């Protein structure tokens, strides 16, 4: 995508989401569901950075997401912190989690990285599940939504205000993600996905790149998890479970691995689809499962990735593909390359 077109898409999406509260009654989707879309997008991006861009099977990102949720829940419950602090505590908990797990995860690549990620995630799940006195165990923990910030004590924020907070965080995350994947650092991550041995034989310590990518990923998942907890005012162990990691991967593949907008579209379809179908039938997962299978078989590059290919095919073929175009971080990739 050219810079200008990308800016247009970004502006259009920003305007659309800014009008979310106006649109939601017309499409019969609750505003809190739209907040969930914005918040979930961050978690999908966190998987995308590792899996879609760097080629690492991030099958355990629910660990960081859940650490974010519990970080926020515990700090609100026991320390009575405000909303912003709760989000920061959640993000910090996730990053600390990644700092601890990172050195172990870095020792493996490919499917073993994925299995280790799942295993470590389950450790956190069982801690939350068993440590009933503090976390409420299986029942989870309910907590009130705290006031917004340190200077604005006891200003409770309503659903609309929370939506716009999520919107601002979403915008910042999207811009930051864009900057990261377009930077020399991000390009090196893409190169690692394609051929890690060659990156090492260019004199680069790929472990260092992957570790930083993991920390960024955990940070995004942690913010996502903290905000999700604050949105529903609840933390429960299943948020840490590997099923949850699977959901993030599913959303990423649905939208398109290795594309920024794929993560938005994936989260949008999954969260809203789940909301709509689950009111019709409790078997909503069957429909999402079918959609996933159709996606993998029919358009493995995901919705955004496949649309991107269509647009490119339709456009007049240019002799002069710019280096940036060919190195387009948004270019669709097949998951698993370089694994």
């Amino acid at each position: 995508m050219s810079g200008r077109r990308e800016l247009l898409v970004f502006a259009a999406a920003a305007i659309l989401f800014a009008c979310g509260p106006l649109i939601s009654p017309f499409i019969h989707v609750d505003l809190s569901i739209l907040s969930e879309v914005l918040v979930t997008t961050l978690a999908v991006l966190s998987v995308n950075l590792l899996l879609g861009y760097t080629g690492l099977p991030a099958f355990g990102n629910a660990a960081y997401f859940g650490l974010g949720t519990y970080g926020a829940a515990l700090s609100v419950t026991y320390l009575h912190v405000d909303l912003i602090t709760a989000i920061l505590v959640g993000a910090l908990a996730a990053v600390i989690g990644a700092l601890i797990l990172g050195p172990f995860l870095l020792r493996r690549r490919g499917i073993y990285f994925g299995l280790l990620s799942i295993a470590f995630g389950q450790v956190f799940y069982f801690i939350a599940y068993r440590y009933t006195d503090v976390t409420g165990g299986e029942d989870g923990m309910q907590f009130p939504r705290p006031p917004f910030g340190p200077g604005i004590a006891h200003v409770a924020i309503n659903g609309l205000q929370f939506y716009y907070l999520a919107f601002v965080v979403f915008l910042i995350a999207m811009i930051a993600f864009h900057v990261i994947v377009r930077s020399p650092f991000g390009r090196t991550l893409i190169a690692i996905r394609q051929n890690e041995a060659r990156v090492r034989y260019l004199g680069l310590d790929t472990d260092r790149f992957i570790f930083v990518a993991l920390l960024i990923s955990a940070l995004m998942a942690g913010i996502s998890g903290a905000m999700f907890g604050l949105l529903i005012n609840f933390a429960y162990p299943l948020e840490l479970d590997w099923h949850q990691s699977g959901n993030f991967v599913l959303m990423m593949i649905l939208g398109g691995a290795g594309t920024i907008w794929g993560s938005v579209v994936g989260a949008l379809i999954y969260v809203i689809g789940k909301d709509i179908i689950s009111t019709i039938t409790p078997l909503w997962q069957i429909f999402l499962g079918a959609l996933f299978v159709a996606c993998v078989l029919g358009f493995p590059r995901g919705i955004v990735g496949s649309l991107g290919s269509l647009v490119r095919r339709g456009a007049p073929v240019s002799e002069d593909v710019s280096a940036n175009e060919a190195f387009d971080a948004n270019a669709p990739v097949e998951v698993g390359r370089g694994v």
Partner: protein
Amino acid sequence: MSDAILLEATDITKTFGGVRAVDSVSIAVREGMIHALIGPNGAGKTTFFNAISGFTFPDAGRVTFRGTDVTRTLNWRRIVMGMGRTFQTPSVFPELTVDENIRLGVRAHAKQAFRLRSPSGEAAAAVDARVDELLGFVNLTAQRERLVAELAHGSQRLCEIAMSLSTEPVLVLLDEPMAGLAEAETERIVGVIRDLRERLGLTVFFVEHNMRVVLSLAEHITVLDRGKLLAEGSPQEIAANDEVRRAYLGHEVLARG
């Protein structure tokens, strides 16, 4: 050309299960030389190559590079120290353009790979100039915007050689640079390898099967057979060595060479 030893491997041994792929092999690569490593299939050439380039570590023995013990040094550090390497199957980034493939290496060498902002001004101009220079060296300037996956095999190999040069090595290790190439492409690569030494003053150590190429290009040849060092010497000496003939060459090939 000097007599200084750039890379020295002493008593390198590598076993896989019960198989001694490389058995106590020692070599010395002298600065400014084009040095070839030959041997029949399964002689342990690539295993040996992997051990000296840090792709794997040897079970026993010692590798020194530029006077420093690098036996257990990680491969990427060896590159920083001045080694460059290519692989039997061109190791490239297939979904990136030729330009970007080479640019990644130039950026890595300029310590820009970890940055969140693309460099501008002089730093960017220096990178651009170096990329242009390397593209010119391997004669791929016209294909710079093509995806590497779309290139012919020989051009991919040239791209890989340019990538291995992008980190400014003093020693270039080439693993079977002519494998799978047509005659014309082989000539191109032979020309480039000569240029590595003549124009850039680099030391070249390469594994090769194509005997005609080895005898015409190399100044020093090491022969491996079944994991052991069989012979060593100038192309003439190797061509005249009976043991080498028996193990590997065959009279006919030598006569043509």
